């Protein structure tokens, strides 16, 4: 349906010494009808980027473009860009019935008359697998998973072309997470929605996404087709994330074994107020100057330069780190640029 494009978007908070660049010159495209999964740790700027798209965080530089139109120029009443929030306990007004919450997000002109609106609300609730009989319930009477489905129905009420899902399962029990994700994926395919799916859970992102983007300290450090990125990660940070995620799976099968494994740099996360010079991951990088003393370039040069020429647009000077899988020829070609 529609393509959502972030063009060199920066978001800054505060000023002077307390200034914080939460999102730093991020460019990302959510292709029409596809799901882009955005992963990264807390504080990496994932949510800020999402909120920038819907106008909830101030865009300092660059722009967010939907189908060629700057989202800030979109008419207020027509909202082709909708968002589902992380916490279903705070994203629904406790004093409005779920029917009212969903109806509020419907375009005013559409579905003339109360009856029409009521029918539309019922249709939307059915779409997310909720009994339309529940339309007059208050959010307090529903479970977390049900509330999150109401929030999804509300997002769909605006007839969106793009949906941004910000950690929509992290407040839910794992036992109901699957049901919600099934609904999300079914609807995305059925309605051909474009989607930016944000999560810290790599397994969930892998299941849902066509494309994975990895964010670190306000920058996107790697982006590419999901299975490609997971099987041939280019950036060492992606590899660390992947190791942490497969680690848990590993642990499920072999208890107590995995504990002994050493992990990359036991250091503390970097301070977003004072991002490190050069490559922002270098103080933690297992293939950077910590390990290879000769790799001074990681401290002096920003790997974002020339990232477009590297595989997965990886922001790393030494992308051939994934040597066991990477095509040598292609690699040499890329480095020749």
């Amino acid at each position: 349906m529609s393509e959502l494009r972030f063009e060199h978007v920066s978001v800054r908070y505060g000023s002077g010494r307390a200034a914080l660049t939460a999102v730093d010159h991020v460019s990302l495209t959510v292709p029409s009808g596809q799901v882009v999964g955005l992963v990264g740790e807390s504080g990496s700027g994932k949510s800020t980027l999402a909120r920038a798209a819907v106008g909830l965080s101030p865009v300092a530089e660059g722009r967010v473009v939907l189908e060629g139109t700057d989202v800030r120029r979109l008419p207020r009443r027509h909202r082709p860009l909708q968002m589902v929030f992380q916490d279903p306990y705070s994203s629904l007004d406790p004093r409005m019935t779920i029917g009212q919450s969903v109806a509020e997000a419907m375009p005013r002109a559409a579905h003339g008359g109360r009856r029409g609106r009521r029918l539309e609300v019922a249709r939307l609730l059915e779409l997310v697998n909720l009994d339309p009989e529940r339309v007059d319930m208050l959010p307090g009477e529903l479970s977390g998973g049900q509330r999150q489905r109401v929030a999804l129905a509300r997002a769909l009420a605006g007839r969106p072309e793009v949906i941004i899902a910000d950690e929509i399962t992290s407040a839910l029990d794992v036992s109901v997470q699957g049901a919600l994700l099934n609904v999300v994926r079914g609807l995305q395919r059925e309605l051909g929605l474009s989607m930016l799916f944000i999560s810290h859970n790599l397994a969930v992102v892998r299941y849902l996404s066509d494309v994975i983007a990895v964010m670190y300290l306000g920058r996107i450090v790697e982006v590419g087709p999901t299975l490609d990125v997971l099987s041939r990660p280019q950036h060492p940070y992606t590899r660390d994330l992947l190791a942490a995620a497969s680690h848990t799976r590993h642990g499920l099968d072999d208890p107590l074994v995995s504990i002994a494994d050493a992990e990359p740099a036991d250091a503390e996360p970097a301070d977003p107020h004072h991002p490190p010079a050069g490559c922002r991951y270098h103080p933690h990088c297992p293939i950077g100057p910590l390990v290879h003393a000769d790799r001074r370039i990681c401290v002096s040069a920003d790997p974002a330069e020339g990232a477009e020429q590297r595989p997965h647009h990886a922001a790393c000077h030494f992308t051939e780190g994934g040597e066991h899988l990477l095509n040598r020829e292609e690699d040499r070609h890329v480095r020749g640029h």
Partner: protein
Amino acid sequence: MRSRRWMRVVTTPSGAVAVALLVLVIGLAILAPIIWGDAASEVNDSAPVQGPSSAHWAGTDALGRDIFYRVLVATRLSIELAVMASLLGVVVGTVVGTAPSVLPRWAGRWVSSAVNIAVAFPSLLLVLFFAVVFGVGTTGAVLAIGLAFAPGFARLTQTLSAAVVGRDFVAAARVAGVGRLRILVRHVLPNIGEPLVVNATINAGQALLAFAGLSFLGIGVQAPSYDWGRLLGEGLTQIYVNPAAALAPAVAVVIAGLAFNLLGETAAAVIGVRTGPTRSGPLPATPGRDEPIDASGDQPVLAVENLHVAFPRDGRWATPVRGISFAVRPGEFVGVVGESGSGKSVTALAVSRLIEHPGVVTADRLDFAGVPMLSTPERELRPLLGTSLAMVFQDPTTSFNPTRRVGRQLAEVAEQHQDLRRGPALARAVDRLRAVRIAAAERRAGQYPHEFSGGMRQRAMIGMGLMGTPKLVIADEPTTALDVTVQGQILRLLSEVRAETDAAILLISHDITVVAQTCSRILVMYAGRIVEDLPAADLTRTPRHPYTKALLAVVPDLATDREQPLVAIAGRPPAPEQIPAGCAFAARCPLADERCRTDDPALVQVAQLHRVACWHADDQHDQGTMG
């Protein structure tokens, strides 16, 4: 629901008094001028300035008018003016207070600054100032009092609405294209309505007093109208002849003021605290159902038999923990896993004696290091818990005092429980920080909690537990708030602590992978009961309970088939005040039959070190697949 809450206001003793007084005052305000209006203005030249008598209960004034009647009749004007003034204050205050969320940002900032400045002045000073500005008289006084009360109200509204505006449902409405004014009316005001109404009620009482004051000073109501303040002023001139002339209006002011203030205060208490009624009937009888724990082998660090935790809720007992039995032996690493509401955290709190009144903890046995926790007085228990039991909580940002240095907070433990002096205690704190692998421990000890990252705070929390010589470390979701890359480090640290100190660890988590990865034994909890207790090594190989199997099946991983729908457990766990008869999992269980719906299975041994509470634990053909 809202009306029920207001009903509760009326049924409290002070609330009932307030309502009775208010009915009296309002009744008088409506009826008194109609019934006694003429009697109150009847001039009687023959009997000026008389003391109380059977004809004139409060005596007469200079013109021989009956003061008692005049006090009754003055109720209407006094109340009217007080209500008008406070209404004015509330309306102006609400408009000004919510303006910042509707106006453009720069204009909003100007409005809030203006409010902040106005709040700095005492309201009585403002009243006098405005009274002079608007001139002597009734209208002037109403405006003066109303406007003087507005800033305080605006400030309150502003604070309350800022809290609501920050919540996600307002953000969601904005994304949905709902206009600012509509957000204000539909989302913000309804959610701050109750505290505003309570405050307005209290304001009305204060306006009444302020009005009486102005009239008393002669800049409020002017003759021939009269309110209590004026009557008070007139009565004062003849106080040596007839004290009742001043007392009667004074009593009236006090009663009416009390009515408004009491009502507001009780409403605030009831709405603010939201406690349920304390009478919930007797605790239900709780016979033990599970097999008693194995008494052989080492003495357990923690022995729990038939533990129940109950909280009164709406006249009933909610029981988040319903009779669990388990033992933790020295050096053991036990994981407790279950969905939210399964009772795992409540169990941890009960074990460490952190359940507060009105919660009730009962158990046939609750022994920590051989000491019965329920029968030992708290004073004797505290030193034991302080040195031998360590707790690590989910949210490392709230478990430290943000205003004190980390090192000092750790040292305090040693000063309290080990009688160490300041210096040695701090040295031990630094040593413990080093023990939990915090780099540059000396420097870090001098820092404040906000200067630590989440993972580091969690380490420091573990370090605080190591200040004593813990026999048991209870870690309640220690990695849930942390990033995946840091989670492994914390779990590894816990394992190291266990290996080095031989402390037992009770790790509570909703994430079965976390538990499986670290623990030696796993307790699976569901709806307040342990449904399975098994060695971690058997978790993926021979789980017996359908719930355990389901929990394992629902975790997506990096090998999940992307073409198949994800597995989920249908339905939801029962609420702790509505536990069904029979097995609590029956409604969600693919194996459930008649017996499961009527009889609750006990936790019984099915193999070496393996206990299960399921009637179908032996149905090995089932692979626990559910849709």
